[in-house]
């Protein structure tokens, strides 16, 4: 049961297509798990349809209809829909061609990261894996960070998060996530700026969390 959802503003920006591409990947992943938000989105799309129907019409070039009609029979290259191999959101099926070939980098004994190429430069899109029972250093956020739980679960001082849960952290939020005891936790994360470790011991680790948008 998904308990944490994107707020109204985020979902409206997503429906409008004005949410940055990186964050939209996070919302898209959440929608895979959440029928409630898919339903909310339908209404927000309806609003877009209404606004389109009421927008100022601008005449198109006189020959545009003919040139479109002439192209109707051009065969379409059907992109094969990737088989849903790991029951992950569709957007990840595209981003992660093969779960086994992912290169994981160790950030701490219990935290691994694998960066994904999401073709934009404002956000770093990555998968994070926390080993069962593992703890992540307490950290602050310099920019917005979206986390969507994909498998397993983790918790922090505010609650327990299970697959589909969508978390938005703003600059200044400090938290210390830890995976639950019985299984590893896999998360999608979309981060605007490097995460800042706040514990005194961890400060020198910060350069290791170098920011690589992709």
């Amino acid at each position, binding site marked *: 049961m998904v308990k944490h959802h994107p707020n109204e503003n985020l979902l409206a920006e997503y429906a409008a297509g*004005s949410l940055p591409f990186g964050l939209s990947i996070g919302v898209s992943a959440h929608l895979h798990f959440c029928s409630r938000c898919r339903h909310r989105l339908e209404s927000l799309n309806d609003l877009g349809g209404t606004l389109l129907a009421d927008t100022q019409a*601008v005449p198109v070039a006189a020959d545009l209809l003919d040139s479109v009609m002439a192209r109707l029979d051009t065969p379409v290259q059907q992109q094969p829909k990737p088989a849903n191999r790991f029951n992950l959101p569709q957007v990840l099926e595209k981003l992660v061609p093969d779960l086994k070939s992912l290169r994981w980098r160790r950030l701490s004994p219990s935290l691994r990261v694998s960066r994904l190429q999401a073709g934009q430069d404002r956000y770093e899109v990555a998968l994070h894996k926390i080993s069962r029972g593992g703890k992540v250093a307490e950290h602050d956020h310099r920019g917005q960070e979206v986390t969507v739980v994909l498998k397993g679960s983790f918790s922090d001082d505010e609650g327990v998060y299970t697959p589909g849960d969508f978390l938005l952290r703003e600059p200044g939020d400090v938290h210390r996530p830890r995976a639950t005891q019985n299984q590893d936790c896999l998360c999608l994360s979309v981060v605007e700026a490097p995460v800042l470790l706040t514990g005194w011991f961890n400060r020198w680790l910060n350069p290791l969390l170098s920011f690589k948008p992709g």
Partner: protein
Amino acid sequence: MELKSERRDDWSNLLSQVGKQRDRSAFKELFKHFAPLIKGYSLSKMPAAAGPHGGDELVQEVMLKVWQKAPYFDPRKAAASTWIYTIARNCRIDLLRRGAKHQSTSLAADDVWQQEDENEPYSLLQHTRNQDSIRSSFRELPPEQSHILTKVYMEGKSHAEVAQELDLPLGTVKSRVRLAIKKLQVLITAR
């Protein structure tokens, strides 16, 4: 109003005909109606592309997609205008990303804004009501709220960009959007 909603139903019927019978004359009707609207939509985000034929690129791409995807259109799930809106939105995102040289990725807007199969009967029930009443409810919004929604949707501006343009605090823009959506939902369920 009555007439309008009837006419809008006609667009969904035409689109179904295009999908099921590959009806070219129905497609021409759709084109004549929607192409100028899509052009208006394109120009509101990319006025730099103005000039006699600026905006036609998006129109062409969207209308071709409409033809290709029409067999998947289901009038029980969405009105033609909503369905075409989502195609136009995705094409506009891709067009802007191509312009910004983000071609390195295989990820397209359709991968991030998918039309997932929605088999929940709950949403089917809601839909017919939504379509008929959103337009009139939208007109009942206070102008400062409808104005911002138009900027977010048609001009494709983030809340932060709208705040900057209108010289308003970001929190004000966010709360106006929230209030507007809440009010639309209340008006729609009350009808």
